[in-house]
């Protein structure tokens, strides 16, 4: 059917600079550029461009630029171009609009309305470069109190399993399948280097990554792909994935064409078959079933490692979190409205769930009210873009954060939202072996470790500014946050006072 859609981008090529080296032709996963052998020139098919800049960055003569197509629609506050284009696309296909990455709609980003505190006069700020500054965070349930052995005076409490991370930033679940193996290996290596954890997602743990299993959170999701006793034993923590911020309430679907031999071996399914992750775990239809699975996993791992639960931030997230604590989870990961994904129906991504800031604040508050905050670690996910976001999340009550989009951006991702297409020119969201080779895990790990190191320095600076030298002193310390430009009800949910008050 004739498409009525105009191209989204315009590719500009400075012919003066173009040396016909065809680097752009080869780098584009979407076949935007092509070479006319006869004429000896390179030309572009703009309609295929997704705006990922791979060609722009790799052009050795800076001959290329990509602009948004300046095509104008008649102004209409209601029928904005996106609405029109979505309708056209569905009229042509009759399908569900698919997209990737996180929500791009202008919902309020609360991070940008929260400001942090700093010491002046009444208490000293701390110089983090020379003074001690502790960021180590222990993930896992904590007992309510410490008891001493009356005989020896030694520790009497049996501590639940604790997992330390050197920085409170973990790599969120991205399965091998949704991302390439070199991309996942980059995450694994960086996690090992930075003393933190990466998450396998629901894709199993590739054989080559077993050396990094000590830094792995192994995920158990509804499809149970790649889950066997060895996998469970290998991971540092086990995560039951209930939901994800980008698509709360629905499952996942790795199309068969992405199930390469390696993906198949890691997921333990035949090559080329669809990997369907149902929306629910079919052994969890209720909260007591969650408890059943949590304890099944604890049994399977002999109570040696934390078992956590990841949920999407939804309306009654606080109550759900409370139930999860009571179901025996050692940590809860909450993924907000802006959480990302490899593929989601656009309508789910853009309209379901609530922002992480509100969800996190609500959960932390609720668990404290119920006196069970100590029973879990909280990991906030979905929309963390920089170290300030990390710190604000911790002040709102998180123990640690998950990052995913930021990590992929560090690997080159331009958030073009086409992950589902499997053609990622940056070699991230693809299984095409020609494209995946673009990520050298050594470089990827270095970029990611650099990012964590940079953020970690900044966090230390900000903490020092607040006169705090241990991260735990900021955890849930909302007095160090003030709101700018928020309504009373938003401030109430966040538990934050207005700036100036």
């Amino acid at each position, binding site marked *: 059917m004739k498409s009525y859609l105009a191209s989204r981008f315009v590719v500009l090529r400075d012919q003066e600079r173009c040396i016909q080296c065809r680097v752009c032709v080869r780098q584009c996963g979407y076949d935007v550029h092509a070479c006319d052998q006869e004429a000896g020139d390179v030309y572009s098919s703009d309609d295929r461009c997704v705006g990922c800049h791979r060609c722009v960055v790799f052009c050795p003569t800076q001959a290329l630029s990509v602009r948004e197509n300046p095509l104008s629609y008649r102004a209409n506050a209601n029928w904005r171009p996106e609405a029109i284009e979505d309708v056209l696309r569905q009229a042509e296909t009759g399908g569900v609009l698919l997209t990737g990455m996180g929500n791009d709609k202008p919902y309020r980003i609360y991070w940008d309305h929260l400001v942090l505190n700093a010491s002046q006069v009444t208490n000293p700020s701390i110089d983090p470069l020379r003074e001690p500054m502790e960021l180590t965070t222990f993930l896992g349930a904590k007992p309510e109190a410490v008891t001493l052995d009356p005989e020896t005076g030694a520790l009497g409490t049996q501590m639940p399993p604790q997992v330390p991370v050197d920085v409170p930033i973990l790599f969120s679940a991205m399965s091998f399948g949704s991302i390439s193996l070199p991309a996942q290996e980059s995450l694994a290596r960086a996690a090992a280097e930075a003393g933190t954890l990466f998450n396998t997602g629901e894709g199993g743990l590739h054989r080559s990554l077993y050396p990094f299993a000590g830094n792995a959170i192994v995920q158990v999701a509804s499809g149970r792909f790649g889950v066997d006793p060895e996998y469970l034993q290998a991971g540092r923590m086990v995560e039951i994935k209930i939901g994800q911020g980008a698509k709360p309430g629905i499952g996942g679907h790795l199309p068969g064409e992405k199930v390469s031999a390696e993906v198949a071996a890691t997921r333990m399914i035949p090559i080329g078959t669809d990997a369907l992750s149902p929306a629910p775990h079919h052994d969890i239809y*209720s*909260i*007591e079933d969650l408890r059943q699975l949590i304890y099944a996993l604890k049994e399977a791992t002999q109570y040696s490692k934390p078992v956590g639960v990841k949920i999407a931030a939804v309306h009654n997230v606080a*109550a*759900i*979190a409370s*139930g999860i604590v*009571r179901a025996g989870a050692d940590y809860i990961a909450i993924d907000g409205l802006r959480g990302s994904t490899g593929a989601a129906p656009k309508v789910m991504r853009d309209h379901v769930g609530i922002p992480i800031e509100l969800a996190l604040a609500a959960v932390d508050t609720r668990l404290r009210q119920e006196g*069970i905050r100590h029973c879990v670690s909280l990991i906030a996910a979905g929309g963390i873009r920089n170290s300030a976001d990390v710190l604000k999340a911790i002040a709102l009550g998180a123990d640690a954060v998950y990052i995913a989009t930021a990590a992929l951006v560090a690997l080159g991702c331009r958030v073009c939202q086409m992950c589902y297409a499997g053609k990622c020119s940056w070699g991230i969201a693809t299984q095409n072996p020609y494209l995946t080779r673009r990520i050298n895990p050594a470089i990827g790990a270095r970029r990611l470790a650099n990012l964590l190191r940079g953020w970690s320095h900044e966090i230390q600076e900000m903490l020092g500014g607040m006169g705090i030298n241990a991260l735990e002193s900021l955890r849930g310390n909302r007095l160090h946050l003030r709101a700018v430009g928020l309504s009373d009800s938003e401030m109430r949910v966040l538990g934050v006072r207005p700036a100036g008050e």
Partner: protein
Amino acid sequence: MRGTSTRNNPYGDGKVIDACSIFGVMDVTGRPFSGDRAIAAIACMHERGNGLGGGFAVYGCYPDFPDWYALHVMYMEYDVREHVEGYIGGHFQLHLAEPIPTRHVRTISDPPQLWRYFVSTTDHPLAGEEPDDYVVQQVMRINTRFRNAFVFSSGKNMGVFKGVGYPEELAEFYCLDEYRGYIWTAHGRFPTNTPGWWGGAHPFSILDWTVVHNGEISSYGTNRRYLESFGYHCTMETDTEVVAYAVDLLVRRHRLPIEAAASVLSAPLWSHIDRDSSPRSTLLRALRQVYPSLLLNGPFTVIIAHAGEMIGLTDRIRLRPLTAARRGPLVYLSSEESAIRLVDPDLDEVWTPLGGEPIMTRVLAPGEGLPGPQAAVRPLGGGTR
């Protein structure tokens, strides 16, 4: 609408979410028996609860006052009892008022004051033609008007005994070993919050309808707004409550047979209705068309009890478990078979009903024989087994 809802739901959740273990046992001859079995069985499913709620409904437990409404009331504050008793005295004929007997249990902390009042409406000037309607109205009024008082049982010759704790602990607390009944239903609760609120435990009841529930009713908002238009106050903001009111509306007020009510709550799929060419499909279609707002969507298993009746019902696609069993005159319903086996190892039969297929057990009419194998009444929707 104050008081109880915030007590049950101090965080203002859209609804209180909980899930659980449920158990029911009935002697179809109507012969009362002790609660040993129900208590042991529900304790066997300890893992399904978290100690934040438990309770029992006992039918036939007040044989001495079979015609009086037994109002079980909990008082969270000392002062309020005087006012409530004044209200009860002013709106009912009060025959007997006494504290509900309890005993100290270490793990049961800070219980409310628990009283029961045996009342009737006969000849009361305010009661109309329908005493049950009047009682419902008064219970709703007490529960909404008095901030710290709550009527949690209001049927005749039956009682609800519930609170915060594991069910076996509450049985001990309420001295249930001293009661006998011909139906016992029981509940171990796994709520997702801890209001420390006794009224939030199961069973939920109105008159002598009681409901114990496992699961979550995703259609709660729809169901609740529909029921509110019929004068029900969902004071608890829990999904279980709507089941009790929905049954009350359909069976007591709209006089539908319970089979039809089951086909409303757990309506057959349109594809099933469409395939059925019998006249029954016309009825099923009409029920769905008239009562779409009472379709209970989402995972649930409930045991609904009523004078002389015990009904087990699951959602249409059986997302929550229910096992039924029978030995002689005893019929069991349980979340897990092991709980039944614990108290009655040698069963005549054990089965799991299909989704939406109610298991209905009635006290036998005089001279009626014991039910045959799997003598459950089929749902009108023609569920498959």
